[in-house]
């Protein structure tokens, strides 16, 4: 266990020194502020840019609009930036050979994978918590949020989908040992999920539902029980992919 915490400490130190902590805090804070801000300012902006004399009857923005911005910005911008930030967590070490000395000192290969995944998971938790808290507080300042349903469950859906993508990125990055390997594999997996989503029946199991069904969750059209299968599948798939990564890394020639 000492070994695991020792390596985790190194991962933490490295992430701070390479500005990952700073970038995650800055990016996800900006996104948190941006969500209610965009919802609030959009009608005013539209009115400004309409030709003179045009009358547009725009409804007053609500808390739902702010959260719709959250579920648009965080997965589309935040998650992509996050995956890019962590897309070289294995390949950098494999390319440079920094792990060789530690592995020959008795560092378990599974420790490398689990500690790296855990550190990325901590960062993802920080990112989502930060963005969610800021959006929640800022939205509460402007609007009443009592009408919104399943707010926490909806954000946990996004969180779980992010965990799945992180696991896939780590696997691709370990398998191909190149900076683009992880990103490419993640992209292919997302494309595959989108293709599967063309078939309506896939909604019963497709983890992509965790991203697309958040609006219905907030409005109460869907309940958590409608999404438990994709939710569980995403979680188990993430665990399976991490185990797969450990198996691959154990047989990897260094």
């Amino acid at each position, binding site marked *: 266990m000492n*070994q695991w915490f*020792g*390596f985790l400490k190194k991962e933490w130190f490295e992430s701070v020194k390479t500005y990952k902590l700073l970038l995650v805090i800055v990016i996800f804070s900006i996104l948190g502020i941006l969500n209610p801000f965009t919802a609030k300012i959009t009608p005013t902006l539209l009115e400004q840019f309409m030709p003179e004399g045009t009358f547009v009857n725009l409804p007053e923005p609500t808390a739902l609009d702010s959260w719709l911005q959250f579920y648009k910005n965080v997965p589309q911008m935040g998650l992509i930036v996050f995956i890019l930030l962590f897309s070289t967590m294995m390949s950098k070490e494999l390319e440079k050979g920094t792990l*060789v*000395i530690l592995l*020959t*000192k*008795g560092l*378990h290969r599974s420790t490398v994978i689990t500690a790296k995944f855990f550190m990325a998971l901590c960062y993802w938790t920080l990112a989502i918590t930060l963005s969610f808290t800021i959006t929640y507080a800022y939205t509460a300042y402007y609007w009443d949020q009592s009408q919104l349903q399943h707010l926490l469950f909806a954000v946990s859906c996004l969180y779980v989908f992010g965990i799945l993508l992180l696991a896939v990125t780590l696997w691709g990055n370990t398998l191909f040992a190149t900076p683009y390997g992880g990103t490419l594999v993640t992209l292919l997996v997302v494309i595959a999920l989108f293709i599967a989503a063309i078939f309506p029946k896939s909604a019963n199991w497709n983890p992509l539902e965790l991203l697309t069904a958040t609006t219905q969750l907030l409005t109460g059209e869907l309940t958590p029980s409608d999404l438990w299968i994709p939710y569980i599948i995403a979680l188990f798939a993430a665990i399976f992919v991490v185990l797969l990564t450990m198996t691959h890394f154990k047989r990897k020639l260094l």
Partner: protein
Amino acid sequence: MTIVVQINGVTKRFGDHEVLKDIHLHIPEHTVFGFVGANGSGKTTLMKCMLGLLPLNAGSITIAGESVTFGETKSNQYVGYLPDVPEFYPFYNATQYLELCAVITNMTKTERRGRIRELLELVGLADTTSFISTYSRGMKQRLGIAQALLNRPKLLICDEPTSALDPAGRAQILSILKQAKAETTVFFSTHIVSDAEQICDHVAMLHEGTIIFQDELTNLKQRITGEFVFTFTIPVAEVHDRLQNTPFEMKIDSDQLVVSLLDESTQLAFMQELTNQKILIQSMQPKTRLLEQLVLEVLG
């Protein structure tokens, strides 16, 4: 003499290319064992096999009685390894890096501090507090040796530790390796034969995946030469003239007479001839050949 490493019939192939062919090597304890060979001869491959970083196609390797297996091998607890280009985390300084290594090797906190200090002093980095990113190649090699010696390994494997260093850096590394012999066995590869000659007790040469020779350095030097170097009480040119009509093969080299005397009967005959001619010997010694010459002969 205890044998630390036993390599028996190791063969390693990459696709159709056989890099190591039926290697047999035994490394005695508390020696500096030089592993000589040209670039690309398979030295690094054998070392990686010894560390369990590459799987074998045939044969077996045992280190300190523990069998080496591919992947996570228990035998690595007895090994310290310095790669040819050691890569460290640039955001650490030497002490921080060694602390990480100490945690990985499950060293106790009390043992850690003293050992790190001792090693940093040995490699001359005790007063360096800057980040590793600012280190020169020589400093990185010295830190590499420190980390390799951290857990008092029974075997220190160094892959070309001096190859890219200037003469001063090379001398420092060789001196550290020589000192390390007191507490461990050093197995180091090099293509700089003079380095091996300076500090090694044993030498093996790998050529095209095969061990060409392996022996104690002193034996190697003696067994391949049949030449003797003589000095006399009279000028060497005069001796050369007086012995011109004898059957002995000889030449003058730096005011010394070098005579080829391959067997004992020739040696006795030559001594007899000197006695007959009343030539007094001032000194006589077998001519040792530089290891480099031997290697060049092997390489053709």
